[in-house]
């Protein structure tokens, strides 16, 4: 049996009014472009938030004593009063394939003072050699350098430096209530000043060598509050944290391993919201498009009603005519999709590799405490591209349904006789 002619007729019908076909296809293609790009931008913003929110200081995975969060009591060190074999713990965490690096930390609330000015600070004891593998905090150093292991040096935020009116090489007094009830105090030299763009960090955080903070806070060297770890990809963190629970518990029974998705659930919620928002955008854009396409096709089929009447008069079944119109819609969808992919791909590639800088339009801003740069960063999102393509073709088909049904109901005699 020879192939039925209806798909070919449908396809050729698109050529009857090429300008109209191009305009309609352009509309659909642009809808596709808008959806894919918008979702890409949204994914870019989410990725930016997660990378900066977790990468700047937090790390993607943290190990604490079970009761440490959220109070961050100075006494709740890993392993409790007895401390823990810190190196063994770091080795256990670092052994997981998803982990890039791990580093110990000690936290203490305290005061940083210079001359007449005093400010409350979160003192963070870090290992100056391991910390750069986990966080980017040292990369935020704008003046001077990070503190060195074993020295009484301190790295403070730019806003804190401004409030205290101190600069690199100046002396500051650190005061911190120690774990033995005494008031730890000592002189430190500002080795560097960092700027993160995150107001809280810049005004309140100060990093010093972990051993120095332990001495100040009367904590033994094997007492740390946190092991922070970086994963190769932030999205590997939840699984890695689960895998780590067992090896970590063999080193310290009360220790818990948490990925950023648990530590900062609001970031996770936002990422999920952004994802589901993508489908809402697909729906809205094509819901609008469907009426435009249906209108155009109604017009097109109405103009060609005499031709359809002739085809039916010489024996074509209404179903065949209907299929013709549906094929026309399908072909329109296919053309639009190709067109859409052709205009989307270059922009996607361009913005992914060289995000346009909108610094002239707006500055950095923060979201959930994470710094977002003013750039149009686009992430590839294959799922959205596929779904949007499917939705586009479906839209064209759905839009063809009404014109197809109307055409199939044509009465050849009446149509041909006049109107």
């Amino acid at each position, binding site marked *: 049996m020879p192939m039925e002619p209806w798909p070919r007729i449908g396809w050729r019908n698109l050529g009857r009014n090429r300008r109209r076909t191009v305009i309609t296809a352009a509309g659909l293609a642009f809808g596709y472009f808008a959806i894919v790009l918008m979702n890409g931008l949204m994914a870019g913003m989410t990725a930016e938030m997660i990378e900066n929110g977790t990468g700047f200081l937090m790390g993607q995975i943290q190990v604490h004593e079970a009761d440490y969060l959220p109070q961050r009591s100075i006494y709740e060190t890993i392993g409790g009063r007895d401390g823990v074999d810190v190196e063994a713990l770091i080795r256990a965490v670092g052994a997981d394939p998803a982990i890039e690096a791990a580093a110990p930390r000690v936290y203490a609330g305290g*005061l940083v*003072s210079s001359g*007449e000015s005093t400010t*409350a600070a979160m003192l963070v004891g870090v290992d100056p050699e391991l910390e750069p593998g986990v966080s980017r905090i040292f990369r935020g150093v704008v003046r001077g350098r990070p503190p060195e292991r074993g020295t009484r040096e301190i790295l403070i935020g730019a806003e804190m430096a401004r409030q205290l009116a101190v600069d690199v090489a100046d002396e500051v007094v650190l005061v911190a209530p120690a774990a033995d009830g*005494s*008031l730890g105090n000592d002189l430190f030299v500002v080795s560097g000043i960092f700027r993160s763009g995150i107001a809280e960090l810049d005004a309140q955080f100060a990093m010093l060598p972990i051993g120095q903070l332990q001495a100040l806070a009367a904590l033994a060297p094997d007492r740390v509050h946190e092991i922070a770890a970086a994963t190769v990809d932030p999205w590997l963190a939840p699984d890695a944290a689960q895998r780590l629970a067992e090896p970590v518990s063999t080193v310290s029974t009360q220790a818990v391993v948490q990925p950023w998705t648990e530590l900062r659930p609001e970031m996770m919620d936002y990422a999920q919201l952004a994802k589901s928002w993508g489908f809402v955008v697909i729906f809205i854009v094509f819901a609008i498009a469907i009426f435009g396409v249906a209108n155009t096709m109604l017009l097109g089929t109405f103009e060609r009603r005499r031709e359809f009447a002739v085809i039916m008069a010489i024996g074509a079944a209404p179903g065949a005519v209907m299929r013709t119109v549906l094929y026309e819609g399908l072909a329109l969808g296919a053309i639009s999709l190709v067109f859409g992919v052709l205009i989307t791909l270059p922009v996607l590639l361009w913005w992914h590799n060289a995000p346009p800088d909108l610094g002239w339009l707006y500055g950095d801003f923060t979201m959930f405490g994470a710094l977002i740069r003013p750039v149009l960063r686009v992430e590839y999102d294959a799922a959205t591209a596929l779904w949007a393509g499917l939705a586009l073709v479906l839209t064209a088909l759905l839009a063809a349904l009404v014109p197809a049904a109307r055409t199939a109901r044509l009465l050849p005699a009446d149509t041909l006789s006049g109107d």
Partner: protein
Amino acid sequence: MTTGIGRAGCGLCLVLGALSGLVTSGEIEAQETPREIIDRVDRILRGESSHGFATMEVVTEHWERSLTMEMWSLGTEYSLVRITAPRKEAGTATLKSGDDIWNYLPRVDRTIKIPASLMMGSWMGSHFTNDDLVKESRLVEDYDIEIGFEGLREEAEIWEFVLTPAPEAAVVWGRIDFEVRKDDLMPTWARYYDEDGELVRTLQYGEYQEMGGRLVPALMVMVPHDKPGEKTLVRYSDLDFDVEIDEGFFSLRALQSGGD
């Protein structure tokens, strides 16, 4: 009024004594408003100036420690507390001058000013706050005072005053209840409530005895209700009133020079 380290800080003005003997409670009741009674209690306990010694025992979930200290006060504006033991902290001093508090740290030989944001922070690891040092002298100004109960309680005639924050006062407590014995104007306890009406801490007075020629509660115990088992005891071992002391004594320079 006598609340907390403020009293300690101001030099244990917790002293009543001779003067209270001159005034009968009946007279006070008949002539004075609650505010005037508290003001009188305060002034009698404080003296023009004071000098004394005390030990402070702090018990927390994690550690216990004992500090001995020497303290001076002048009026309501100035006070100085210097830690004398243990050795690790000997020489550490706190100066209150008006609304400001400075700490002198002998180890680094530096003086730091306590920022406003840390006024509610613990003073020397105790359950007293820096704010107790500053605000104690201002209770009469910052709070509206009413008598919540008057009469016999535990075999003593007492007043129970209820202090509620004045409309524009920048205070941390939602309410303070304060009990004073009528016959000798000795405070017995103060209860501090937060803005939700929750009891946060209780200050208990005790060991009433003559010091520096006045009757004073030699013991104050601060109990925080959100930390079971924790408390801070301040016990005065020696106390003198109306000593020769001037404002220059309460300067930053004097603080730094170590007072010796």
